[in-house]
């Protein structure tokens, strides 16, 4: 999802992720209207179906990488092993490090491992590379693409960076709170190929 600041991308993401309720309108997930969900139902919707990756990582500083992932696997019905999840993002040797001992890219990959560990149907990422330099950004994006390919998880990524859009199957352009255009990429570039 592309668009300038204030165009409504994050609001949209928060609403489809069950973090926020729309003031009007409907959102359907597997035939159910999220707008009618109670708080409790939204909690279970997030717990069972949605994975989040935030721009600012939002790891618990007092927990190690492995434990931050376990935070999710403990409450998920069908999780993958936290250590396996770290392997997928290539951080198995950082499992026992605390967030303060890791770089931004590593922290973000822990956040991705945390999100994918529950085997979510939808992975929502709000500017996952926003705070990262291009090199670490590439590693993070590769991790996301790997999850998309291996698990078939629908992944929604918000970005400012039009180049990142070239990785996507489908690009949605936002402006002034509206969808301006939906554009389908016939071929996708790899993170290595894009021009930051």
């Amino acid at each position, binding site marked *: 999802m592309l668009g300038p600041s204030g165009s409504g991308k994050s609001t949209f993401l928060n609403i489809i992720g069950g973090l926020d309720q729309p003031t009007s309108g409907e959102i359907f997930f597997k035939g159910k209207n999220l707008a009618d969900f109670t708080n409790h139902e939204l909690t279970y919707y997030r717990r069972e179906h949605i994975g989040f990756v935030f721009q*600012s990582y939002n790891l618990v500083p007092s927990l190690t990488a492995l434990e931050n992932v376990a935070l999710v696997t403990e409450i998920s019905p069908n999780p993958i092993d936290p250590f396996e999840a770290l392997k997928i993002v290539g951080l198995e040797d950082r499992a026992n490090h605390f967030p303060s001992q890791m770089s931004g890219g590593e922290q973000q990959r822990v956040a991705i491992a945390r999100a994918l560990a529950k085997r979510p149907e939808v992975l929502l990422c709000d500017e996952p590379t926003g*705070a990262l330099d291009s090199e670490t950004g590439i590693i993070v994006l590769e991790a996301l693409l790997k999850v998309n390919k291996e698990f078939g998880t629908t992944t929604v990524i918000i970005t400012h960076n039009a180049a990142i859009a070239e990785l996507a199957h489908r690009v949605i352009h936002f402006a002034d709170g509206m969808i301006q255009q939906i554009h389908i990429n016939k071929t996708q570039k790899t993170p290595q190929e894009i021009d930051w």
Partner: protein
Amino acid sequence: MKSVLNQKLLRELLAIKGQVMAITLVMAAGIAIFVIMFGVLDSLKLTRDTYYDRYQFADVFASLKRAPEAVNDRINEISGVSVSQTRVVFDVTLQMETLLEPITGKIISLPDKSSALLNKLYLRKGRMLFPNEENAVLANESFVKAHQLSLGDSLTIIINGFRRTVHIVGVVLSPEYVYSIAPGALMPDSQHFGVFWMSHHSLEAAVNMKGAFNDVSIKLERKVKPDDVLIQVDSILKPYGGLISFTKEDQISNFFVSNELKQLQSLGSLAPIIFLSVSAFLLNIVMSRQIATQREQIGMLKAIGYSNSEVSFHYLKMVLVITTLGAMIGLSLGAWMGKGMIQMYTQFFHFPILNYNFSIKVMVLSVFLCVFSAVLGTLFAVNKAAKLPPAEAMRPESPAVFKKSLLERIGIYQYLSFTSRIVLRQIERRPIKALMSSIGVAFALGILIFSFFMEDSMDYLMYVQYSMTQREDVDISFARSIPSKSLEEIKVIPGVLMVEPIRRVPVYFKHGHLKKRGSITGLIADPKLKRVIDKDLHAVTISSHGIVLNKTLANILKLKVGDIVEVEVLEEKRQTLNIPVSAITQEFIGLGAFMNIYKLNTILDSAPKITGASLLIDPYYSAQFYKKLKAIPAIISVNITSVMRKLFEDIMADNILKMVATNIMFACFISFGIIYNTARITISERSRELASLRVLGLTRAEVAYILFGELTLITLFSLPIGILLGYGMSVGMVQSMNSELYRLPVYLKNSTYGYSVLIILLSAMISFYVVWRQVDSIDLVSAQKGVE
């Protein structure tokens, strides 16, 4: 199950261990004081009740001049009377070689044919008396201890004017003398007052009371109201010179014990309740602010699928860990100190056994109060964070709405540095938070002042009592009223500089349906020694018109100046008089009623008589003086002001001040705990902002100025509130401690305010220092990167 969350909990608790300790301390202080005081109170009550019950403490007492034994059958026949036992009781004086001053005491007969049915004795050492045993006595334990006597030692007792040498065969305790106090005295003085028991046969011979009695104790049947019995007893005994009978509530030892317990209840419940509520309040604030700093994490936990209740439970566990720790420390500290405190009471209250009982009820209540309030504070904060949509909670709080502070708006702008402006705007932006912190510190100051208050008040009471009221050196009383002219004999004793007569008459005051047993003290119009003073500390002239009452007695009888009080005289001709109230004074001790002695003699229609005298003596002659005094058999009580004062000061130093010191210690814990926590939380709430300022190039001193500027303003603002709170608590304490025995004056020294404020400022400085070291460790780089 939630092992990772528990891991998080544990690590976070360790990270804030300083704060955890401070909170724990505050809570432990509240609980400890609560447990100490209520534990002591419960133990004393339980011990008293068990003792009275097992040793058959009588319900009704009466004394009289002399009646034949047969009269007792009539008392036994009164409906509602279960047992009535007669005896002979006499006031005695003793001469101990170790003491200059004479000693007074009581001697009581014990039945020979059977053991006593009522007011049984507990044998501590030696043996009971054999039937009809001559020249042997049992002595009360406190007297034996005070004089370091042992079994077999002999004493010279002057009974009814005759000297008798007796020896001690047993050391005993009596439920009638739990608080062993001489008639007319205010404090137990075991050195100068003793109680002795002698075989009835032996004593009645000594005092010429064969086949007669002058004292009766009655046990009522269960659930019988004493009122009717009292009336019938009085009517039976009246012809035999009976004084008005009274219930155990007015029995002198029990009256003092009850009063002490009542006062302990006030002191012991008000102080802990204040401490506990203050700590509960602080726990609430501290926990809610602690949780508030976790707002972003709460948002994240919710975003990844944790439910509100799971998040709340997680933080509740944090509180439960802290409160459990606090409760454990508080309870063990309380139990340990309670044991020490109860020891103190064994000096005053002579019970066979006095153990400290740790009541489960007290324990549960105190812990519950603290936990409840901490949990409330936590839930409030968690709910506030959990109510936000997770997306919003995760974002750093949006820049708050700031405006120019009041000081700037009124134009002092140009005088304020920009760091000062940050401080002022911060406080103005969140006035409620600043106010809550101020109130917390104010409470800490309040309980400090309140803790010091007891000492101030006692000091003032002593000053008024011994420098303004009781200015005599010695106060003597006679066994019965004697002609006024005896005063001349006392005047000529060597060393006597001044003598003033006193006549005390036991009476029954009545006003409408209200009545009160007491006595009228007859004094000369303008006494120089024993004076009556008003609330401005001016001496009151005892005019020959009417009666002067103290406020407490006047309040009991609902009398005001000009009202007529009905007075039933309990001796000689037993007149009923109607006397106008001429003045009401503010006395701190007892239930005083004063009349001009000449007028009193006139209306009693008797020859001029005295029952005692106040003396001023020349210390140079005191040896001769006391020697002469010992030889006057009519004297039954000698109160030496300096001895009483010393006694009072010792009690103060040993006990009340110990209690005060305990309170002060806990108050210091609490004040440090709250200030330290406020500082710590402020820094954790604002670490990012402060780090940014450091990055922008502010020096550590400038950053510290911003941080401590806010805390200093909060502390300064709390001072006047705290002073008011402290004063208010002291007034509350005085009002709840008022008793017939004594009233505490509301009096606070300026130094009390000074010390309390100093302790608060010191706590603040130490906290600042600890937090200051934290400012150093703010991580400039990571603070800039993002939320984590």
